[in-house]
Every structure is written in C-alpha cells, then in structure tokens.
C-alpha cells in the first residue's frame, strides 16, 4: 500500500490518492479484493464443499440447477453459518472481547457435519492466518495464539483480519460470500462441465442472493447458528468415498 518507490502521479481534483488517510477517503476495500481473490494462498480451489458429489448424483447438471444449489447453500447451508461466524469474529475483534472471540473460535472449529467439511474450513483458515500475519501484519493477528491455541476456521480468520485492519463488516461479509460462491461456481464449471458464459451468468445472478443474505447473517446470534442443508451435509459425507475425485471436499 506504500507508494514510496513510485513517483507521485498528479490526480484530477476530487480524486483521492492512495496516500490519503483513511479518515478522508471512502472505505478502502483493497485488502478484501486481495484476501478473497482466488490467488490468495489458502488453496480454496482444492475444495468443492461437496459440490463434486452433487454433480455426480445429477443434482447439479446445468446452470439452473447450479444456481439453485448455490442459492440454497448461501441461505441455508455451510456458507450462511460461516457468514454468521465471520460477523461474530469481526465484532469480538473490533471490541477486543477476547472471551467472545475464543467462544467463536471454538464453536467454528467444532461446527462441522463431516470430516471433510471440518478440514475444508480449518485448512483454509490456518493458511489465511499464516499468509495474512506475514503480508498484512497487525498486533491483533499476532495476539491470536494467546486467545486460542487451536486451529482457526476460515470465516473466523477472515473476520478477525478484517476487523484488525479496519475493514467494514458488511463489505467483508459480502466479499466473503461472493468469493465462496465464485469458488463453488468455478468448481462446477469444471465438473459439470459448463461454459464460461454460463458460469459468469450464474455468478452474476448469485450477487443478488449475497446482497439479500448479508443483512440476515448480521442478525443471527451464535445460539441460532445453523441451517437446513441436509442433502449438502450428506453429500459432504458421500464425497469421502466418491470414486473419482478432483477436489478435497
């Protein structure tokens, strides 16, 4: 983010430069674009959240069934619960409530219906914390091992980092869910297979679901964490013994 090496470029009046302090500029969301891009080293591409099994059974076979499945997950499945966990982690970090943060960390690490679902969230979460502590250091990230000795679930890792760097919760949630949806759709494009245009249309359609889900996730207390994605959970179990697999979940 530092512009030390490059010569300052003159900007037209009214356009904030990257040197402007955050108090004057509109919310700077660049870190979110980096953290939640497919290039960030959490290995998201290796996980399909059991979508691979849903393709095997024919539950997902074209753009329409893909859109329906992703919509179900965003509203009632793992991604919705993850959004709720992210929000609680963000708030506990923001208010420096270590006890509340420890509770979210513990709950998130245990909240998995099957082995691969736990692996999917903990592997990405640990990788996210490692990469972010090095490249985007923050005292709040460095303090994490004092609060929780266990592994870190992915949405909780993102929530902590976002709060540590002053990124707004609503935008973080939207970016997170969008990245999850994009990853699922990218997996389906390869598995079904679908054309890139179908994949892009599906992703575009999903953004309206993300917009609708963010305010809902913000309201859910930890005691009400959950969903109703029975068949997605069973798919996660069945994926363990799927004969031909490209994905780790």
């Amino acid at each position, binding site marked *: 983010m530092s512009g030390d090496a490059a010569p300052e470029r003159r900007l037209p009046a009214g356009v904030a430069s990257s040197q402007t302090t955050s108090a004057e500029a509109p919310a700077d969301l660049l870190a979110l674009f980096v953290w939640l891009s497919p290039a960030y080293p959490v290995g998201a591409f290796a996980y399909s959240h059991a979508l691979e099994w*849903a393709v095997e059974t024919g*539950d997902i076979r074209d753009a329409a*069934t893909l859109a*329906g*499945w992703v919509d*179900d*997950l965003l509203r*009632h*499945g793992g991604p919705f*619960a993850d959004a709720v966990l992210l929000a609680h982690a963000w708030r506990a970090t923001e208010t420096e409530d270590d006890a509340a943060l420890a509770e979210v960390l*513990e*709950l998130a*690490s*245990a*909240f998995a*219906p*099957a*082995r*691969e679902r*736990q692996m999917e969230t903990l592997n990405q979460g640990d990788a996210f914390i490692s990469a972010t502590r090095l490249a985007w250091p923050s005292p709040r990230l460095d303090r994490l091992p004092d609060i929780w000795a266990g592994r870190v679930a992915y949405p909780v890792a993102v929530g902590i980092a976002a709060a540590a760097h002053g990124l707004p919760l609503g935008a973080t949630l939207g970016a997170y869910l969008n990245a999850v949806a994009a990853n699922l759709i990218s997996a389906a494009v390869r598995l079904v297979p679908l054309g890139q245009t179908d994949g892009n249309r599906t992703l575009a359609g999903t953004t309206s679901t993300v917009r609708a889900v963010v305010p809902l996730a913000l309201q859910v207390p930890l*005691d*009400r*964490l*959950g*969903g*109703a*994605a*029975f*068949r*997605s*959970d*069973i*798919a*996660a*179990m*069945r994926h*363990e*013994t*799927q*004969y031909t697999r490209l994905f780790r979940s």
Partner: protein
Amino acid sequence: MFATELPFEPVAASIPIERRGQGRLVVEAHARDGRTQRGRVEESGFARVRFPLSGRRAHALEAVLINTGGGLAGGDVSQTIIRAADAAQLVVTTQAAEKIYRSDGALSRIAVDLSAGAGARIDWMPQSTIVFDGARVERSIAAEIAADARLLLVEPVILGRTARGERFRQGLLHDRWRIRRNGRLVYADGLQLEGDIARLLDRRATAGGWAAFATLLLVAPDAEGRLQEVRAALGLRDGSPEDPPDTLPANLEAGASAWDGMLSVRLLARDGAPLEAAIRRVLAALGVADIPRIWHS
C-alpha cells in the same frame, strides 16, 4: 417407534396459558459392583421416568422417559438432566414418540443436558419427535463427557404427521447441539427452520421435499474405527474400485463420516418407516444389540 396415528387430538390453541406445562426430570446413575443403579431421581410437572424390569441388562440401566401430558403444546417447557457417574452405563429412551403440537404462537422449549463421567456410557435414543404443522419449538441438546466416556445420540425427527399426508409447512424448529469432551467443544450443530418451511424443505440442497431425518452421533475412543461397518450396514459403498455400488433403498439418503473421536450418521427419508429401518441397521452395526424393549411395542 414411529407411530404417527394418535389416539386423541388436543388442540393447543384451546389450552389456556395457565395450564401450559413444565416438566423437569433429573436422573442420576451410579456404578456398583459392575452393575448400574439409579441414584437421585427428581420428577416434576409432566415428566416421569420408569426403570422397567424388562429393560434390565447385564451392566446397563434402562430409563424410559414419560411425558404424562402426551406431547408438548406451545409454551410447554421440558427439561431433562441425565448424569452417569464414573463407569455407569445408562440407556435412555422414551415411552412414545414426542409430539409437538400446533402452537398459537408461543414457543415450546426442550432442553436435554447429559453428562458422563470417566468410563461411563450414555445411549440417548428417544423415539421420534413428531413436529405437527404449525408447531413452534426450540430444542437444545448439550452433553459433557469425560475423555474416555462413550456417548451415543440417536435423534429421529418427523416433520408433519406424514401418515395423514400432513407436512410441516409453517412454524418454527430450532435445534442446537453442543457436545463437549474433556471440557473441549468437539461437535456443534444447528438446524434452523422458520418461515415458509415447506418451500424451504423442497429445495434440492435441503431436504428435497422429504419429511424425516435423523442424526446419529457416537463419541467414543473407538468411534472412528466403526465407520466401515456403519457404511456397510447402510448400503453405502466404501470407495474402493472393487466395492459394489450403493444398495440404499429408494426412499432413503444417508451418509456417514468419522473424525476427531466421533462417528456421525445423517439420514434423510421420505417418511418414518425407512428412517426407522436405517436406524436399526446402524445400531446393530454399532453393537447396540439391546435396542430398548419399548421400541418393539
């Protein structure tokens, strides 16, 4: 076990607030000379417990829970506390399917609180919970067990009185599971059904329109080692190339997974009958040969 025809049909909306029930039950069990005996028992409100002679086993004590109210109406509160002291072995079931009646708006609350000491064992296997259309119920299942204890949870739920074609279309069902072993949370789960529930359950990634589901969770030092037998009992293929294809019945979906000293089975069925059959197959594979007698009646 999954009787959905009822001898009577109370209308919850007509029950005045002051007659709404509370039931609280505490059962403690202790190990004495290689057998398990009942300890402190507290019954209040509609909650009762019996320890039938027919349920006596070599080591375990069988407790049969009874709701004298015949089910839960809106506003009813049921609390069950089960304590198995060190080395005690307790099998807990219910006398009948628990019916959650249509509510006039008030929530029914169910809280189950289990604890098992060192080397203790609790098999929590109630008969099905039948959720009537319009019911509003919040349930919490919490357990705290020692590192070497064994906990089996079997919780079948039928949404709507399927035998008469009823669906759980609207109402509320919140279910929260929190299992701690040696002080650490090892398993957490949550079900949230609210709003236009029929439409929600029709979705492909949710229930695909089916009405019966169950989670079986085994937390035990040897739990993970039982995965293969459980998959075989359900008719699920094992993943090896020479393995035969699935032999699941057409009206059942099932999955099993094991991790972190636990084995979890999820079942989804069109209605109660295939769900019950699958539960019996899994219990047999888990070595729970002594299914509570009351299930046979």
